[in-house]
């Protein structure tokens, strides 16, 4: 070989134009350990020189994608040329001319690949910058899961890769070859081949094919004259006898074996694969074998005989196309496309799966597809994707799929991008001279729809429908909660949509939360046939609002084709009152809890709570009395409601001093009581000689934010989070709890044993247990609550302890980010913190020697307080989704 030829045909793998045309020296050294020993180095030049000088003569391959031994056995004419010295190697032949139509590897058949990829015309290959079909397969097609050989089905192969992550570059073929090198042989790669049976039936096969690393390779790459069968159901000898044309094709070299001929076409003609099997009889007895769930009757029969085998669906065939035009149709809130398909492997139906890749977005949707296939080889498509969001960035790539056909649609830089009226005109132009179909009629009807003009048109619909949205809530940044009711005759309403700035979101009526509205039903006296029993609606639409759009509105599409528009009330003001209004809408129990929270309350309340805690002004910070210089313990106490507890608590802190230098930080979470609290704090500090640092929050925020505000200014090595209604009974409590932490670094948080006013246990640790009434979510329980405390000095370990009294190392709490503000108002923050500590390998415990009173307030079961119960459930839902493991879920 000349130097030019060497550079062209054997470049380093990293610089190769196509993976099959390279010298992969790293692979070469692993594939041929004897040669590696002889080379004695792992340098590229030395290895390649060895290959050229010695390897070629030994029949070595230059990389894992081209199999020299297979090529010579498959094509005896080429082997003869090599023997005669007119060719250096099979690889040289492939590089010069064989690449056009020959098979370079026992698992790649260009004919098969072309059959399932009708899009890959010569022009298409050029457009994709591919040298040949094998190049396309290795660089693009394998990653798309395309089938290149009937005995290697990517899906079947991947199913044998138990539990491992999907292949790094998505190519099952590359993974297979890589594992083969390591001796990792899969159980099966296709329903058409049985490796275990083959190995048992032909024990000499491996000896006869010394380079074979697995049964599949021995079969496909072995001596063709040996007439070996691939599985018990097919007899090579029988088939060639029965079908001389097959035998002739094999002799000519067109097909690698009678089996290949059978799979390519014989099976479709229901040829008998062996003496014992008659496919025509089989199909008569099992008509489902030909109903499209699998490729052919032979596969169906093999699957029925071997229950362990999964029946693979027919392979996906790949076509191509070009986008002519696309754009949003604002009036419909839909995205429309006009596409020319250049190759159509199967007939085109009405619903089309679309995956559109934009610069900053990927859209997966189902489109209405109107097709004009009168031209035969090509087709025009008009696609309409309802509920499309406004895309971010230009369209880059488009993949369509329908059944067992996929189209890879190019997006030329000259594509027309329309909007609104112009897009409607373009589409209507496309429909001129378009064959009639259900889809075409539907799209055209949609295009003719009267747009929204700002008026409510529900009343003017011909059918009886009442719709009233009573409240709408904005859940920042772009979600909407709708509260209202709708009464309509059964089956009348086809679709309900929210429109905003040209995009739309469908309201899934099957999943909307329903409510009885006897107040509404009483007024609907003239509409007796209405499906109005549970006419109340509550729904949450994430991402429904377009940025900086005008007011949203609703469209109602009836099954008779009419469309009406309904107005929405202006958004409620943000804040806690709106959260309460939202959470008070329903009182779900048991099986109604999870849907209510998963669909509406959970995400909506999360958004509302996050918004209300955002962009806060800094709190005020006042110190009363002179603070100690060095502080070991920072006590942080949120104040809300019973501000007077400050007086009792401070009096008792002054008497039952913590026993270590301490700063007392009170955080007022009720801005309307600032003046009163300042006075009280000043008087308390002076009366008891207890310095007090008062943090005044600008708004009522809740337990977690209040504690975190205190944490931000705390100086102590340790922090004690305490409720305002917790009162010490003896001095030294701070020193005792701090000592517990100092003695055991694995102890993450420690608290006091808390007692009621009558001396019974209020809290000595919490255990979380699932409650069936509330979707099986876990709630904190207090064992021994109300009972007499038992004697004992040892720490009581618990799954979690209450935030009413928690002592931690300040650095660790800061590292955890403080308490999690995703929990709203006050609930579960303590359990969440303890779970985070546990995830770090740290424990939570109560010190029974340190006792304090905790005057727990009344429960929230009062009537008319549904929102409080639901607030607790919201926090339980948040905790559940954060901490449910398969074990706890069971």
């Amino acid at each position: 070989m000349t130097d030019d030829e060497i550079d062209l045909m054997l470049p380093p793998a990293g610089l190769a134009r196509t993976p099959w045309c390279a010298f992969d020296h790293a692979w070469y050294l692993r594939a041929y350990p004897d040669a590696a020993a002889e080379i004695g180095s792992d340098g590229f030049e030395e290895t390649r020189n060895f290959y050229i000088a010695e390897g070629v003569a030994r029949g070595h391959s230059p990389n894992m994608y081209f199999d020299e031994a297979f090529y010579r056995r498959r094509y005896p004419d080429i082997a003869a040329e090599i023997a005669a010295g007119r060719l250096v190697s099979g690889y040289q032949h492939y590089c010069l001319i064989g690449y056009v139509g020959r098979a370079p590897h026992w698992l790649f058949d260009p004919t098969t690949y072309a059959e399932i990829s009708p899009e890959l015309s010569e022009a298409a290959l050029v457009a994709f910058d591919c040298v040949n079909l094998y190049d396309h397969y290795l660089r693009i097609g394998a990653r798309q899961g395309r089938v290149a050989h009937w005995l290697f089905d990517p899906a079947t192969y991947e199913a044998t890769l138990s539990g491992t992550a999907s292949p790094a570059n998505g190519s099952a073929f590359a993974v297979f070859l890589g594992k083969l090198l390591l001796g990792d042989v899969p159980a099966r790669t296709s329903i058409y081949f049985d490796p275990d049976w083959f190995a048992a039936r032909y024990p000499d096969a491996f000896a006869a094919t010394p380079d074979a690393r697995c049964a599949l390779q021995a079969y496909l790459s072995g001596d063709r004259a040996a007439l070996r069968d691939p599985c018990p159901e097919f007899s090579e000898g029988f088939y060639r006898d029965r079908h001389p044309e097959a035998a002739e094709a094999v002799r000519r070299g067109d097909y690698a074996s009678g089996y290949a001929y059978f799979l390519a076409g014989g099976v479709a003609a229901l040829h008998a694969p062996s003496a014992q099997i008659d496919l025509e009889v089989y199909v008569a007895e099992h008509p489902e074998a030909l109903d499209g769930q699998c490729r052919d009757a032979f596969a169906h029969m093999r699957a029925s005989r071997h229950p362990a085998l999964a029946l693979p669906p027919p392979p996906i065939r790949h076509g191509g196309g070009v986008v002519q035009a696309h754009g949003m149709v604002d009036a419909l809130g839909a995205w429309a496309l006009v596409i020319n398909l250049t190759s159509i492997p199967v007939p085109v139906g009405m619903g089309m799966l679309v995956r559109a890749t934009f610069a900053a977005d990927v859209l997966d949707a189902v489109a209405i597809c109107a097709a004009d296939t009168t031209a035969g080889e090509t087709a025009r498509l008009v696609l309409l994707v309802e509920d499309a969001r406004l895309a971010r960035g230009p369209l880059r790539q488009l993949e369509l799929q329908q059944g067992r056909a996929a189209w890879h649609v190019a997006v030329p830089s000259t594509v027309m991008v329309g909007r609104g009226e112009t897009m409607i005109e373009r589409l209507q132009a496309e429909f001129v001279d378009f064959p009639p179909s259900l889809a075409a009629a539907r799209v055209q009807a949609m295009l003719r729809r009267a747009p929204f003009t700002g008026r409510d048109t529900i009343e003017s619909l011909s059918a009886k429908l009442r719709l009233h949205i009573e409240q709408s809530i904005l859940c920042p940044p772009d979600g909407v909660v709708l509260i209202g009711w709708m009464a309509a005759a059964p089956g009348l309403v086809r679709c309900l949509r929210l429109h905003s700035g040209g995009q739309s979101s469908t309201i899934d009526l099957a999943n909307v939360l329903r409510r009885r509205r006897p107040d509404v039903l009483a007024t609907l006296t003239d509409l007796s046939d209405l499906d109005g029993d549970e006419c109340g609606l509550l729904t949450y639409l994430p991402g429904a609002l377009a940025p900086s759009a005008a007011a949203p509105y609703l469209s109602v599409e009836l099954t008779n084709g009419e469309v009406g528009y309904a107005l929405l009330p202006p958004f409620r003001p943000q804040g806690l009152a709106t959260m309460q209004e939202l959470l008070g809408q329903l009182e779900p129990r048991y099986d109604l809890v999870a849907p209510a929270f998963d669909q509406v309350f959970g995400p909506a309340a999360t958004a509302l709570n996050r918004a209300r805690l955002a962009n806060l002004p800094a709190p005020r910070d006042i110190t009363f009395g002179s603070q100690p210089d060095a502080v070991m313990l920072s006590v942080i106490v949120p104040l809300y409601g019973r501000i007077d507890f400050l007086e009792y608590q401070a009096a008792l802190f002054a008497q039952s001093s913590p026993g270590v230098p301490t700063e007392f930080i009170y955080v007022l979470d009720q801005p309307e009581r600032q003046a009163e609290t300042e006075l009280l704090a000043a008087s308390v500090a002076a009366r008891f000689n207890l310095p007090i640092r008062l943090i005044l929050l600008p708004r009522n925020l809740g337990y977690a934010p209040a504690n975190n505000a205190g944490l931000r200014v705390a100086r102590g090595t340790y922090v004690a989070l305490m409720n305002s209604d917790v009162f010490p009974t003896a001095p030294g409590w701070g020193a005792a709890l701090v000592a517990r932490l100092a003695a055991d670094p694995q102890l993450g948080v420690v608290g006091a044993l808390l007692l009621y006013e009558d001396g019974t246990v209020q809290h000595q640790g919490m255990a979380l247990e699932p409650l069936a009434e509330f979707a099986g979510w876990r709630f904190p329980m207090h064992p021994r609550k109300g009972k007499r405390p038992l004697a004992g000095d040892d720490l009581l370990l618990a799954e979690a302890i209450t935030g009413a009294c928690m002592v931690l190392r300040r650095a660790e709490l800061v590292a955890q980010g403080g308490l999690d503000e995703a929990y709203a108002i006050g609930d579960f923050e303590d359990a969440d913190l303890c779970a985070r500590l546990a995830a770090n390998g740290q424990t939570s415990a109560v010190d029974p020697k340190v006792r304090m009173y905790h005057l727990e307030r009344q429960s929230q079961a009062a009537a008319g307080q549904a929102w409080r119960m639901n607030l607790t459930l919201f926090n339980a839902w948040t905790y559940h989704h954060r901490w449910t493991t398969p074990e706890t879920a069971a």
Partner: protein
Amino acid sequence: MTRRPAKAETSAGRRVLLLSHSHPKLTRGGAEMAAVALQAGLNAQPGWQAFLVGATMDPGGARDGSPITQPFGDDDYLYTVGAFGWFNFANRDRNFPRAFAEMLEEVRPDVLHFHHYLSFGVDTFDLVRRKLPDAKIVLTLHEFQAICNHYGQMIKSDGHTLCREATPRDCNRCFSQFSRADFFLRQLYIQRFFDLVDQFIAPSQFLADRYIAWGVPAAKMRVLENVIASPAASATAVAREDKLFRVGFFGQVSRLKGINVLLDAATRLAEEKSAVTFDIHGDDSNQPDEFRADFAKRRTTAAHNVRFHGAYDNSRVDALMRNVDVVVVPSIWWENSPIVIQEALRNGKPIICSDIGGMAEKVRPGLDGWHIPVGDAPALADLLSRLATDRKALAAMGKTLRTAATPADGVAAHLALYDGLFSRP
């Protein structure tokens, strides 16, 4: 689950859990006083340990998530009632079974002695059986609740007609909102759980007979007097110099306790200018408004020979009784075993009572006192008039009065009964 450390248990000692529908620290009715007296008596016995659980309907005592708490001490429990069905005594509080089982784990009683199934529910017997299959269940019957839907009094719903037998037909006549089938089901439900009781105790034979007639097996029934609290330290009699014949009434002032019979008799005696005077101890604070209005009128029109002393603390009853000559129990309902009778006996005072039910059983005519026909005010007036003039009859009676059982006797009888349960085959 924590277990409390056990005191020394000798072979003669056992652990007893007493259950009272109202906790004695909160109310002071007869049943709860009997329970607490029994608890004190048992705890005084070496080797025995008695715990008490009382119930309350007041939600103020509840602790969120813990229906059974210990506000009063280590050996006492309080159950805050959740959801109770009064028609068939069903406990519908879904948090109760678990809390109750936890308490049984802690207490590990050998005997559970129920002084009521109100508030706990008859279905609690089943919980006990499942949790402690070897424990013995004892039930003291204090009234006819299981038999009679009218406050367990076996008085028709007109408020005064005595009822001798409960049948679905008759009960439906008293309570038309419940059908005969409903009453049949009620009986079925209650008896299904009564079957699990090892031993029934009735304070009077009268009560026992009614229950046996209703369906409780006679072999499971024992008659044992209620244990009452120990008498106060010797209360000396106040020497009196007047010639008046003092009649004492002690207890709740209510229609069924016969207060109107008493007042009518008093009016007649006042007209006859007899030397009889009446001391009425007790008040009507628990009574319905209609009665209270009527009683208020009667107080204003009552004759000068009636003095209303108002409510009294039970610990003072001995001193009060020593100031009267005779105690009258003019109830117009059956009564079971009125504590006032035992208190009168221990203070050596004869008793006048109506001639029905448990009262009549506890007062032997001519030996412990006299009977009058029930509701017969003139007969009462005649008798009192006679006694006022003939003091010798009274003195003679003083010698024949039977001695009331002491609390120690009562406790011993219960101990023997408990032990007997374990030696049955």
